[in-house]
């Protein structure tokens, strides 16, 4: 079954009704936005459940068991509970900043998916600056965390917000440089072009020796830091900063941060799968299945990190980024450029 066929059929039916083309485009855009929102909300809820189950497996526990089959609707219950919970704004908070922070975080997390190719042709809009757009939008998250930290008027929240700003800015650079080394090879910023250049398994960028694996590792490390997960979960370090930037948030606003965190994790995994693991490319199965398999595989790696490693200290984190990761990423970029130029490895 190819999803794209269904969408094409629906689109043709819409055109056949004879309404003006502008309306057709508008309706299809809105419809795709709704579909993506729904799918991502489901994925986020699933990821929360999966994380809890996985952590339980790592720790020889059961995890959620009593709400639904093996706790499958546990996160739904959590979400409904968070909706009905009282929404507190601290008296001394900076109200507009406090109010907008979770919304920006949530919207930014979803806005990325405009240019993520879920499968062959399954993309809302194939922008020719696709990857640039993604990198730009994901940066919004840090602004929202900074806003949350500042707006809460809480010292722990402020420390958490500052930490996250410092951290995301430092790891953004090696991540982009790692992405650049792929882009240098593809010669295009479009996500579809990137995927199409890795049609066969030995063309996946992770297998392009020697620069591919290095770029991939740099990307994974930087992405872990970008999504604020262990061992780089300093902004919400429970044992130091109680809950970090979201310490004052309750109810729905907290749920927004919570879901956005998981969606961000899915985002970076999707980017990783697209850039290094061939995106939707794969035999036999439908393209979107391949995409999901690869993305969830990367998500699993992130979760694995989280339940294994302790946390770094903030200065060690910075040192690691600026003194090790960044020089490595630049060297790798030069290597990639040289390989592309010499044409030796252009299979």
């Amino acid at each position, binding site marked *: 079954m190819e999803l794209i066929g269904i969408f094409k059929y629906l689109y043709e039916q819409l055109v056949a009704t004879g309404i003006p083309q502008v309306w057709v485009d508008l309706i299809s855009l809105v419809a795709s936005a709704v579909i993506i929102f729904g799918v991502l909300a489901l994925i986020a809820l699933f990821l929360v459940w999966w994380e*809890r189950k996985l952590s*339980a497996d790592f*720790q*020889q*526990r*059961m*995890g*959620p*068991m*009593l*709400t639904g089959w093996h*706790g499958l609707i*546990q996160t*739904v*219950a*959590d979400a*409904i*509970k968070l*909706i*009905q*919970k*009282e*929404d*507190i704004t601290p008296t001394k908070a900076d109200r507009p900043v406090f109010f907008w922070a979770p919304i920006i975080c949530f919207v930014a997390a979803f806005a990325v998916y405009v240019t993520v190719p879920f499968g062959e042709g399954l993309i809302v809009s194939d922008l020719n600056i696709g990857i640039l757009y993604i990198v730009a939008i994901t940066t919004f998250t840090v602004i929202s965390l900074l806003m949350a930290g500042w707006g809460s008027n809480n010292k722990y929240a402020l420390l958490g917000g500052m930490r996250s700003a410092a951290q995301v800015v430092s790891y953004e650079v090696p991540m982009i440089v790692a992405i650049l080394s792929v882009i240098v090879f593809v010669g295009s910023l479009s996500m579809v072009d990137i995927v199409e250049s890795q049609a066969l398994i030995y063309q996946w960028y992770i297998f392009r020796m020697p620069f591919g694996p290095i770029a991939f590792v740099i990307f994974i490390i930087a992405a872990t830091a970008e999504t604020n997960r262990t061992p780089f979960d300093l902004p919400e370090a*429970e044992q130091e900063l*109680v*809950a970090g930037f*979201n*310490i*004052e*948030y*309750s*109810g729905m606003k*907290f749920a927004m941060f919570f879901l956005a965190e998981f969606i961000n994790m899915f985002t970076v995994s999707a980017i990783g799968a697209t850039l290094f693991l061939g995106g939707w490319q794969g035999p036999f199965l439908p393209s979107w299945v391949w995409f999901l398999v690869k993305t969830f595989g990367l998500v699993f790696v992130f979760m694995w990190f989280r339940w294994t490693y302790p946390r770094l200290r903030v200065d060690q984190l910075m040192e690691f980024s600026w003194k090790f990761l960044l020089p490595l990423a630049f060297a790798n970029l030069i290597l990639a450029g040289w390989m592309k130029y010499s044409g030796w490895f252009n299979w």
Partner: protein
Amino acid sequence: MGIIKKVPVYAEKFPGGGIITTSLNYIFSQSQASSLWYLLFGTACCAIELMATGASRYDFDRFGMIFRASPRQSDLIIAAGTITKKMAPRLKLLHDQMAEPRYVIAMGGCTVGGGPFYYDSYAVEKGIDHIVPVDVYIPGCPPRPESLFEGCLKLQEKVKLQKIQDWS
């Protein structure tokens, strides 16, 4: 939540509108009961039992109960361990910081009524129920994890009986 609280008022004006109220009631109370996030609040011996209950053999997560470090995000405060006169204002502060609906479990003899420190102690608060409203009392010094489970299940029963009209 103000809006949800208004739903029964309007819905029941229509014939058969009661079904909306009851099903909303069911969904909300069930999800509240199966997702009681507890505040990481432990002072003395009971805190060790609370940790043990969260650990592998007993596993609180089965009931959907996970700990949150921030009182804003937790629904339930398990007062584990002795509350002294110095600590009592802090407990009250934490309870005030929690968002409605919020619940309190008094775990262990000390929080129920002073326990082993009822006599001859000048520093222990004799029972926490004159500081915060308590929903479930669990006696024991310290209570076994099984009795903590029993207390949490009792609390779930209580939560399931709540109606959305009652929310503040």
